Each structure stands twice: as C-alpha cells, then as structure tokens.
C-alpha cells in the first residue's frame, strides 16, 4: 500500500488550524478583557512574534518538501 506524503500534510494542517483557533481565543480574551497596560501590550506582542516565527519556519520547511512522494507500507509478494 502506498500512502502519499500529503496525507500527513493534511493532518498537520487540521491540527494547526485547531491550534490557531485556540490562539484566536487567546487574542479575543486579551482584546476584550485585559487591561490596556504596557505589560499586556508587550507580552501580547512577544507572543505574536513567537507565534509568527513558529508558523513561518514551518511554512518554509513545508514549501521545500516534495509532497508527491509516497510511503510504501506492508510487504509486497
């Protein structure tokens, strides 16, 4: 059986979207409930930069992969 690599990409995208949802909830809570202070602005900015870094590095890697490759599973007779 041959499994194309892009199946793992699809799983990764689904998991990432769920993570993005949680990140969205976090931003919602900051904008709605957090007091506007230097601390909240700095920490939110730091978090956003880290978040973009993680996503950016992941995207750079993903674009370099040949997703048309396949994984062979099982023993052929």
């Amino acid at each position: 059986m041959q499994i194309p690599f892009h199946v793992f990409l699809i799983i990764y995208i689904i998991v990432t979207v769920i993570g993005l949802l949680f990140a969205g909830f976090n931003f919602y809570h900051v904008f709605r409930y957090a007091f506007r202070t230097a601390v909240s602005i700095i920490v939110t900015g730091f978090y956003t930069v880290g978040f973009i870094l993680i996503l950016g590095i992941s995207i750079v890697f993903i674009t370099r992969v040949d997703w048309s490759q396949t994984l062979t599973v099982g023993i052929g007779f």
Partner: protein
Amino acid sequence: MNIESLLHPREEVIILLRRDKWVIFKMTMFYGILLIVPIILFVIIQTYAPEWIIEHWTDPFIKIVMALSISTYYLYVWVFFFQAWLDYYLDVWFVTNERVVSIEQKGLFSRSIAEQKLYRIQDVFGEVHGIVATLLDFGNVTIQTAGTNEYFIFKEIPNPHQVARNIAKLAEWDKKNHHKNNAVEEI
C-alpha cells in the same frame, strides 16, 4: 478594556492586586523547560548517537514526520503558554473607595466578576502557607461580607497580611462615613 470602565463616577482604585510574581515565574519556568526539551534531546542524541541521526534523518518520511511533529509541539506549547499567562493576568482583585471587586478568569470562556460594598465587609484575614510562600510573603486574603457572596478570596497575592490590614481600615472608614457620603450624593 480599561479599568476606568469598571468604576463608578468619583470612584478611585486604592489597591490593585494580581497573583504574586512567583506564580508567573513558576509558569514561565515550566513552559520554558517544555520549549527547551526538544533542543536538549537533539543535542544529547547528536553527542552520544550521531549515527542514529545520519541513519534516520536521510529518510524523507522520517524527516517530514519529525519536522511536522516538532512544529505542532512548539505551536501548542506556545499557545498554552500564552493561555496560562492570560489565566494569571486576567485574575484581578481591586479595592476602591467604595467596594471590593474580584475578577477571576477560570479557563477559557469562564469568567466571574463579583463585588461588594466596603461597609458590608465583616471580617478580613490574611493567610500564608508553605515554605516558598513564607519566604516570598505571598498568600490569600479572605474577606467575609454580609451579602449573597459571603466570601471573597484574593489568591496568592503579595503581602497578604498588610493588604488585609489596609482593607480592614478602608472598611472601617467606609462604615463611619458611608451615610455621610450617601447624604451628600442625595443632596
């Protein structure tokens, strides 16, 4: 949101409290360790079993799975790190010249705001438990009131005994002057 939006006219914040810095330090250390663990594991493997990396890292499937797993791991650790910080930052207790307000964020989408007039405070006491709490002087302040919400608990705040004394003084002052202030407002 600004704190002024929560205040009545002529109301001033006298004491604004959050959990002690130790709480945020503990949380930062925990998530910092989680962020560093994959790097440490990689360094250890590279030092003691470099042939394992050479053998497995050249396989495109393993390379992809490892990279996607690490990306997912860091993404979720970062998200939950910020969530933990929000849980700390959105818990606020403040005392004004009129009332005590407790705002607590209990996880995602669960938030409670309670308030009570100062003159309805019946008892205030501070507690410090544990070695770290004793050394760093943080703990809980419990305020007993004559209302539906019988107890307010300010959790893990710095200088709890001093804060309890200050709240007790404010409550005493408000009880003496509350009727005078009301008469002035009615006029």
